[in-house]
């Protein structure tokens, strides 16, 4: 990190963490941090009254690891140029490596294009622990951004056995060990128990459907891992992809799951549960024939609950690539859509699948899916509970975020899109009746501020003194613009930041890459009492000896895979 | 007499064990042969260790004869390597992969001896 000072003058700061709502002021930066003041010799950036936020933080994106299967099976995606300046092939330059792709860009393009959107931190949503080196190898090639990843525990044999045998301390020790082995930041649970059932080509049907051969239910897995998560005082809560994803009527399972967590007491000042891509889990109806939005019911519950956060999984019309550890869902997708299907079950741990698809406004199902994401964002009153995502690239590529922001900020823009829907679609959604339009302040909360608390990263997602100098300046004069009407201008401004600063380095200027410093990788080292750790290790020794095909000593991700690591230690409450 | 055979190439353990010793006699022994079943060898009037000339549309090569009764009639196998590649099909049919299995060939007995690796490769430099 260079020793330098920057003064950003006339910044129209929108920093919800400090309650600052588009006030013009100066920002001071020294050695990569926000500071009170700088000397006369500081480099000056004149923000000229333009909208200034902390760097964006995408807390749920598929950007390293499984995305490679998506690239591999969809070479056509490399040539897609659907979003000018943020997709398709670009030749190498003095400053940048060659780029390709739209839904599944190459690693360099992921770094550059997120930075162009003013984003500076991403969280990879799923690390299969046995293949964790792969995630970190891709992280190493994603420039600019700070990175973290969530490790998969939801269908893990050792987890299920400890839950079944009521060994909460050993379970916590195993989770700590798994995070260390995979250099993960948090606990991801995908369709709890479903990955194991998929080992036999089956699935679990809900929270209380026992996992074959393991005598545990998804509900028990979820509660067991939540307890372990809190025992370890992890910086993030469990991060849950609910059972029954993608099925009509699944909103009930989703609410049931959320309710179940009311009894979980967080040991860190953050939510007890994060539910991810809720759009895919807020479906009403009993089949695809009577399919309709379940967003009002889910939002109604969320408005009365204060123990959780969630993200949208907003749909973008056009081609997408679904990729998830929810193996059975991907197989079902491929059969329903007659699409190609990749699958990768991971021994003793989980499943996964990848299927490309395309969302069309002409399909009433896709139209309703599109509406559900926006309905959730508008019907849930408190934006601090909501993280904006497209579950990139499941709902659509992250390069469409600027387009999606306009759905939230402009009823007119929504009307434009909705006017292309058929009557059946309109009957199955509540969106046409919603006139709420989000402000820049609310958008900032959903795209950077709430992530700070959600991931316990106080130095991220805000512009407080002492925070990382990750700053995005957008070409918007908030006092002169009506986002409701001038949504195209809003989209343009968010599509290429006037400036993006990463740790005080100018990485983007006028929507172009200026510099490509290497970001950090955060991982969690949770302390576990030695005796418990040693008892747990005896059990995993057996797993490796009898069932894994990789030696235990070759399982742990080595230091060399994290060129710029940040180890987050937790003390644990055993 | 010439035997019409369908030629395939492929890995063997011996060939694989000499991947990093290709200038050695062992590699030559592991690769410079053609397997036919005993009945086919009989038709050609050769026994193991005699020389065979394998000719295709793409070239010809002299290799040793070897019996493998796992081969059906008319199926010839040469381990992957420079000898096999003298006669395999370079055409990829637009999909990147040349024709390394299933090349029509004619095989006959010969008095010539197989070239060692360096002599075989030297021909390319002199072409």
């Amino acid at each position, binding site marked *: 990190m260079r020793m330098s000072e920057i003064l950003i003058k006339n910044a129209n700061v929108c920093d919800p963490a400090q309650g600052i709502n588009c006030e013009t002021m100066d920002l001071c930066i020294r050695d990569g941090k926000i500071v009170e003041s700088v000397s006369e010799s500081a480099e000056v950036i004149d923000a000229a009254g333009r909208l200034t936020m902390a760097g964006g933080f995408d807390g749920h994106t598929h950007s390293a690891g499984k995305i490679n299967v998506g690239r591999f099976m969809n070479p056509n995606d490399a040539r897609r140029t659907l979003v000018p300046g943020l997709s398709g092939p670009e030749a190498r330059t003095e400053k940048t490596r060659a780029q*390709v792709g739209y839904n599944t860009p190459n690693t360099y393009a992921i770094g550059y294009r997120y930075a162009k959107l003013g984003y500076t931190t991403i969280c990879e949503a799923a690390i299969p622990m046995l293949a964790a080196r792969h995630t970190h190898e891709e992280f190493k090639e994603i420039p600019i951004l700070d990175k973290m990843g969530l490790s998969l525990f939801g269908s893990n044999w050792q987890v299920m056995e400890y839950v079944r045998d009521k060994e909460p301390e050993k379970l916590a020790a195993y989770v700590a060990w798994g995070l260390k082995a995979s250099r993960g930041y948090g606990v991801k649970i995908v369709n709890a128990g479903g990955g194991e059932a998929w080992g036999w080509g089956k699935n679990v049907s809900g929270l209380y459907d026992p996992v074959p051969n393991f005598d545990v239910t998804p509900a028990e897995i979820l509660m067991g891992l939540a307890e372990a998560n809190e025992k370890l005082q992890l910086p993030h809560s469990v991060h849950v992809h609910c059972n029954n994803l993608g099925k009509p009527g699944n909103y009930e399972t989703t609410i049931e799951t959320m309710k179940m967590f009311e009894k979980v007491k967080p040991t860190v000042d953050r939510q007890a549960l994060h539910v991810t891509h809720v759009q895919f889990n807020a479906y009403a109806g009993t089949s695809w024939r009577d399919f309709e939005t379940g967003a009002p019911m889910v939002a109604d519950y969320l408005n009365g609950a204060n123990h959780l956060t969630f993200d949208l999984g907003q749909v973008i019309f056009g081609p997408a690539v679904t990729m998830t550890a929810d193996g059975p869902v991907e197989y079902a997708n491929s059969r329903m859509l007659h699409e190609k299907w990749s699958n990768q*079950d991971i021994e003793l741990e989980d499943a996964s699948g990848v299927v490309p698809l395309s969302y069309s406004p002409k399909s009433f199902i896709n139209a309703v899916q599109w509406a559900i994401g926006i309905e959730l964002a508008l019907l849930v009153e408190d934006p601090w509970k909501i993280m904006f995502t497209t579950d990139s690239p499941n709902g659509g590529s992250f390069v469409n975020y600027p387009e999606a922001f306009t759905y939230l900020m402009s009823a007119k823009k929504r009307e434009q899109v909705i006017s292309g829907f058929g009557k059946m679609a309109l009957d199955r959604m509540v969106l046409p009746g919603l006139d709420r339009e989000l402000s820049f302040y609310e958008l900032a909360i959903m795209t950077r501020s709430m992530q700070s608390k959600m991931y316990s990263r106080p130095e991220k997602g805000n512009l407080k003194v002492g925070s990382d100098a990750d700053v995005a300046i957008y070409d918007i004069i908030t006092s002169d613009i009506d986002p409701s009407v001038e949504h195209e201008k809003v989209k343009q401004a968010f599509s290429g930041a006037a400036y993006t600063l990463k740790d005080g380095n100018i990485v983007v200027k006028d929507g172009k890459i200026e510099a490509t410093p290497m970001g950090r990788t955060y991982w969690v080292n949770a302390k576990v009492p030695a005796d418990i750790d040693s008892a747990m290790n005896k059990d995993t020794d057996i797993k490796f000896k009898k069932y894994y095909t990789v030696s235990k000593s*070759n399982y742990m991700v080595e230091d060399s895979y994290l060129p710029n690591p940040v180890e987050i230690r937790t003390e644990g409450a055993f | 007499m010439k035997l019409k055979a*369908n030629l395939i190439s492929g*890995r063997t353990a011996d060939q694989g064990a000499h991947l990093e010793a290709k*200038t050695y006699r062992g590699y030559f022994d592991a690769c410079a042969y053609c397997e036919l079943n005993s009945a086919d060898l009989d038709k050609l009037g050769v026994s193991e260790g005699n020389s065979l000339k394998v000719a295709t549309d793409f070239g010809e090569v002299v290799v040793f004869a070897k019996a493998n009764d796992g*081969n059906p009639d008319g*199926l010839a196998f040469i381990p992957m390597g420079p000898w096999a590649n003298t006669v395999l099909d*370079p055409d990829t049919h637009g999909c990147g992969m040349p024709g390394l299995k299933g090349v029509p060939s004619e095989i006959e007995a010969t008095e010539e001896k197989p070239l060692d690796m*360096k002599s075989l490769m030297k021909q390319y430099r002199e072409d």
Partner: protein
Amino acid sequence: MPVIKDAVCSLCGSLCDDITVTVEDNKITKIENACILGHSKFVGMFEHDRIETPMIRKDGELVPVPYEEAIEAAAKILVNSRRTLSYGWCSTSCEAIGKAIQLAEETGSLIDSTANVCHGPSALAAQEKGSPGASLGVIKNRADVIVFWGCNPVHAHPRHMSRYSSFSKGLFSTKGRKGRKMVVIDVRKTDTAKLADKYVEIEQGSDLLLITALRSAVNGHEDVIPETVAGISKEEILELAETLKNAQFSCIFFGMGVTQSRSKYKNGDGVSSLISDLNQHSKAVTIGMRGHYNVTGFGQVATWETGFPMAIDFSRGFPYYNPGETGANDVLVREEADAAIISAADPGAHFPQKAVRHLAKIPVIQIDPYANPTTEIADVVIPAAVVGIEAEGTAYRMDAIPIRMKKLIDTEFKTDEQITKDLITKVRELKEGA
């Protein structure tokens, strides 16, 4: 004397990581758990010669030169070339592959891996129909039906059957081989076929016919199947389809017999489709038997760095991919490449004559620990450390599981990664000078 446990064998795509290596005086004197291929690699390297020094061909003969001179000569070839083919990079680490891709990008080269003559068609098949697979431990723990189609693990992957497939035991496969049905489909009775419960001998080049017939049977359309397909009776085909349908968990491992025979990538496409159909009845997956220990790694690194797994053409500045046009054999057979850099592979031995003939005509840079047929047509030869023995690094097993290879002994030789870095530096220097 140091004994290193859980060493990784850098020979075939099985990437066994349970090898015990004894090192004495910086030499490997004993190796346990390895197969014949691994043994010959680890112990054999002290029994046969290395390329001792960099060499440049002068008046038809390779003569020793200092390292810097070889790097400069190689860099000049790259800078003066208008269409360089960079080929191989499969018996090396992912770290070296990353640098090779960077070099190709900076020199506007075309880069391809040994998949070009191996599982390249499997990549095309995945692009058509996907790749429904699993990690090898899933097979070990669950599979009760295992099919080897056009592959011969007894020879090519000698420990595969004991560690991962036929003979392995796991949580739901406690009986090992006794609890499994092993089917081999091949054109000749291989040593693997001799171990099978069921050997199906098909007519060479008719794999797609059999796959299609099996799909018909699995999907309940047995009426359309002729009395004989691919030399197999209808009765036998129906029986095989029943075996697969009634399995708890089946896996089709496939090899070069499928990718190199007639119909090439359409065979793999058919296998993926068959697997999808089978999952209507029971769990089924498929895994390609990858040859070089890190050919899978090349595909992974290339895919995340360029978007494409192989046959990547940087002549436009951005990656362009069209394997029937930009594959290594195609550019050589069209006599399009005007220089080549080859590392950790041996096209001199493994490409058909027409491609080798063109290679012999153009300047060739070779980076390899050992002399091989490619050396005979190379113009600049740079010796390298043996990755997995003298250098550490990442490799991907045939099931895309990444494993870190250990450094077991010291060496004076430079690693592929270092050599490639030096080439990048020298190429930049020459370009700036120009």
